[in-house]
């Protein structure tokens, strides 16, 4: 389940569904939608960053060692990174 809570009752629903606090979409963790997750084999990764470029969620970033890793709070498990990774360093495995 996502961390972000929604209005408990219809009475608490904002008029017209308006959102008054900008930028709060990040509080909704879309990672809860995932049923496969990307696993990086650092022995094959050449740190080219093509996964970072193609990730439609924008959830991949470079860590301190220079590897590109997905933020599982937001990764929906689409598998595009694994598909694009030409050295074959990313594998999709079952289970969020």
């Amino acid at each position: 389940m996502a961390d972000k809570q929604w209005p408990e009752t219809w009475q608490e629903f904002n008029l017209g569904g308006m959102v008054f606090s900008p930028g709060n979409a990040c509080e909704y963790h879309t990672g809860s939608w995932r049923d496969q997750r990307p696993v990086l084999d650092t022995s094959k990764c050449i740190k080219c960053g093509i996964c970072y470029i193609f990730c439609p969620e924008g959830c991949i970033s470079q860590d301190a060692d220079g590897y590109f890793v997905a933020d599982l709070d937001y990764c929906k498990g689409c598998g595009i990174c694994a598909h694009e990774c030409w050295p074959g360093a990313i594998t999709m495995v079952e289970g969020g």
Partner: protein
Amino acid sequence: MTKRAGMEIAFAAAEAVALCKPDVVAAYPITPNTHIPEHLSDIVADGRIDAEFICVESEHSALSACCGASATGARTFTATSSQGLLFMGEVMPIVSAMRLPVVMAIGNRALSAPINIWNDHSDIMSQRDMGWISIFASNGQEVVDMAIQAFKIAEHREVLLPLNINLDGFQLTHMVEPILFPDQAEVDRFLPEYKPYATLHPDKVLSMGTLGMPEIFTEAMKAKDVALINSKKIILQVWKEWEEQFGRMYEPIEAYKTEGADMLLLTMGSMGDTAEVAIDELRKRKVSAGLLRLKLWRPFPIEELRNAVKGAKVLAVMDRAVSFGGSAAPVGAEIRAALYGEPDRPLIINEIIGLGGRDVTVGDFIQIVEKAAQAEKEKPEEAYEIYGVRGS
């Protein structure tokens, strides 16, 4: 000072809207539209009102432009008819869900095919469940009055919903009638300035029209339904204020000679005025018949209907649209459902009449009342019929 003028009703509607000083009018200017936006574009071009007239490339864009303009806090108006309303269809539920008080005049016209530009109610019935307040006018005076009332109702802080005023294509839109126009000072006294609940503005960031996940969508729909149901209270309040200031009374269901009537006709739109003449004629012949004119279609006035039909033996419901393959025509089905739980409900017959501009005459209503009298004795098998269709 109130001024009396003979005017085509579409022009009169535009004049009434101009008295409400809209900020933005967006409309697609050609068929199936009426003279309403055409005359408003003249009014704007002549500098009589300080409004932006957006001459868009389609009805879809017209309502989208109104939606966006209303979200910035502008008082907005549009008008359309027939297939033009269908083309607005995608945006219709968005405007209501975003709680934007756009006002629209619909010159009700048939839906093609076959191509037909004349009057019936198939256009608005296709948009029945879009969450808009939906009001029907019987004559030119009502169109003008309702246009001014519309902004006050829609923009009321306890309503904030879009509203459509329905006026029959040709039978009303192209008819010249004597109409009383309030002057600007009277309208200004009646209609307060629009104070939006929230607006899109770069200085105060907020989002409208956001995503609604399954976890929240049901609650969103409940909130929208309750908003429309609760709008009735304000509609009645605004109508009362109108009556106090201008002396003309508005009710969700207007009763004409219904006291003690065994048979009731129920109409929406311009045919109510024709039916009134038929009732006068029938009363002269000692036929116990009365008329109910339904003005408020959404939110549907369930309680008022139940009270209005008390004591009647037969209720003949007129429809100006077909619900193809349905249990009855739209108004007929609605009324049957609303009265189903009533222990002493009248027998209901449902007549579809006046499709695609076919004349509805006093004689037709007299015949329908005769049918109603017959129905009471014979209990018809058919749930509805298309009145006057050749070959039946």
